[in-house]
């Protein structure tokens, strides 16, 4: 018999592949993808805005909003559902009775969900880019004077936005796996995860309180809140892009590192919590 069973990226990949297959065969993924893509494409039908950059800004804003909203929903619901599906249908019993480490199971589930989120982000961003390109090309013919400096939309920055959003969705999926690790129902896991996501979106308020707090206790509480929950405003580069402002690569790199750090912490936590769970 083998002296030990080492961590195997191969087993993580096999579990991730199964997770992707399960996710894409679910109706939820297709429905959210179609809804997001439909909303982005639907922005073309809105004609009450001025020609020129304001219309393109609206489409960009609208598109970013659709990607962020549906991506976040997909990250929470898919991570929780695919995790609980294994426990509730007791397929995890068969899988974990094999020589599979708990860490491989959690990372496999996460990698599968992250791949699904990457697919979602790529498709919806692709639709947004296509819509913006079509509309910008049409506007260039109608009002060429507005485009004397070339195209107004920064397509490279949209790709950077997509990358950061995907990273944010991955952080959301990882924190959902932490919650799912100790939660007893899928619903509880989804509701609590959405609450945490909300806190993360409003976390900049904790930062402000920490800076302004007079008393020591309030300062410590605000500091803890600011440290425990990631600040999702760090990923919010959409406003700058929509306003036509360039994205500083250093800011981009900093946000990616920030997201990567929280991702690693949440995954370690998810593995730790799941190791203690009885199947």
């Amino acid at each position, binding site marked *: 018999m083998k002296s030990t069973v080492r961590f195997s990226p*191969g087993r993580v990949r096999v579990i991730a592949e199964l997770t992707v297959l399960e996710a894409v065969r679910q109706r939820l993924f297709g429905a959210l993808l179609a809804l997001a893509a439909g909303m982005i494409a639907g922005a073309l039908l809105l004609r009450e805005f001025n020609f020129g950059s304001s219309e393109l800004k609206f489409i960009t804003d609208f598109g970013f909003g659709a990607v962020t909203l549906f991506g976040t929903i997909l990250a929470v619901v898919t991570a929780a559902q695919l995790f609980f599906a294994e426990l509730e249908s*007791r397929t995890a019993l*068969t*899988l974990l009775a094999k020589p599979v480490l708990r860490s491989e199971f959690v990372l496999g589930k996460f990698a599968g969900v992250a791949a699904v989120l990457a697919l979602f982000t790529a498709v919806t961003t692709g639709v947004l880019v296509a819509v913006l390109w079509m509309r910008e090309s049409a506007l260039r013919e109608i009002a060429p004077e507005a485009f004397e400096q070339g195209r107004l939309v920064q397509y490279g920055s949209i790709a950077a936005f997509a990358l950061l959003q995907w990273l944010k969705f991955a952080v959301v999926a990882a924190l959902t796996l932490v919650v799912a690790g100790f939660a007893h129902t899928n619903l509880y896991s989804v509701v609590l995860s959405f609450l945490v996501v909300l806190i993360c979106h409003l976390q900049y308020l904790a930062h402000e309180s920490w800076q302004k707090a007079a008393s020591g206790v309030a300062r410590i509480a605000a500091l803890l809140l600011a440290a425990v929950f990631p600040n999702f405003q760090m990923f919010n580069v959409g406003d700058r892009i929509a306003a036509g402002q360039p994205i500083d690569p250093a800011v981009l790199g900093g946000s990616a590192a920030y997201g990567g750090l929280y991702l690693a912490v949440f995954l370690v936590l998810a593995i730790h919590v799941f190791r203690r769970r*009885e199947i």
Partner: protein
Amino acid sequence: MIPETPLAVSIQGLTKDYLLSMRGFRVRAVDGLTLAVPDGKVFGLLGPNGSGKSTTIKVVLGLAEATSGSTAIFGVPSGEVRSRVDVGYLPENPNFHRFLTGRELVTFYARICGVTRARMRDRVDEVIEWVGLKDAATRRLSTYSKGMLQRIGLAQAVVHDPRLLILDEPTAGVDPVGSAEIGELILRLKAQGKTIVLSSHLLAQVEDLCDRVAILNRGRLVLEGGVDDLVTEKGRDALIVKGLTGPVADDLRAWLAARGVELAAIEKPRTTLDRIFREHVGARVDAREKEAGR
């Protein structure tokens, strides 16, 4: 008494409590259980619902933690992942990923268990054919019957050719014909020298398949021993004779009495209802399959 052969599974003083509420209320599922499953034997784990069979299996497989006591597989503590390298497991009422086909499921578990790429295809085909699901291999599991799910479950359990198989109620919810087919597969595994731990409610089947049995009740071991030892009535012998009519029987009784032996009863040999059902229903199924094949 524990036989002196290498142990496939050893359980020492296992107690397992489940926490019922945050206020500390607990229920004891297994209570001080000590068992030894010898290598190469078929071991039956019997008991009513809630007797602790499935919990014991979960602890042995490292899926649940013992409150006290210890368990090991081939000498490796259950908490270590390597204890499960040589184990195949079929859970009670298996519910596999229903969006997969039978072949996809078996391939998935073969990959998980490290079956080499070179052997993968042949091995997957081999075990699917072995469980008799060759024609249904490309169908999704959502279209499988209960018996077919149990058989594909058996295929995934043996795909990496493990030394030990733990089968939790492999015939639960399956009709007698399907149950007999699964019994045949278990007998074939036994012939290959596999160690099998079999949890079941079907006592007749356990009697046919197992070398040793342990009976649990309310988490405690109430009886353990070799099947032959347990089912053989000590101090009584049965003679199977033909044409034993009244006067002959009286003569025999008198002959035995003269030698100080009492004839306790004269009985007709009995078969089991399970066997009659299988003979009649199984024959019809065979005939129908042959007809369909024609």
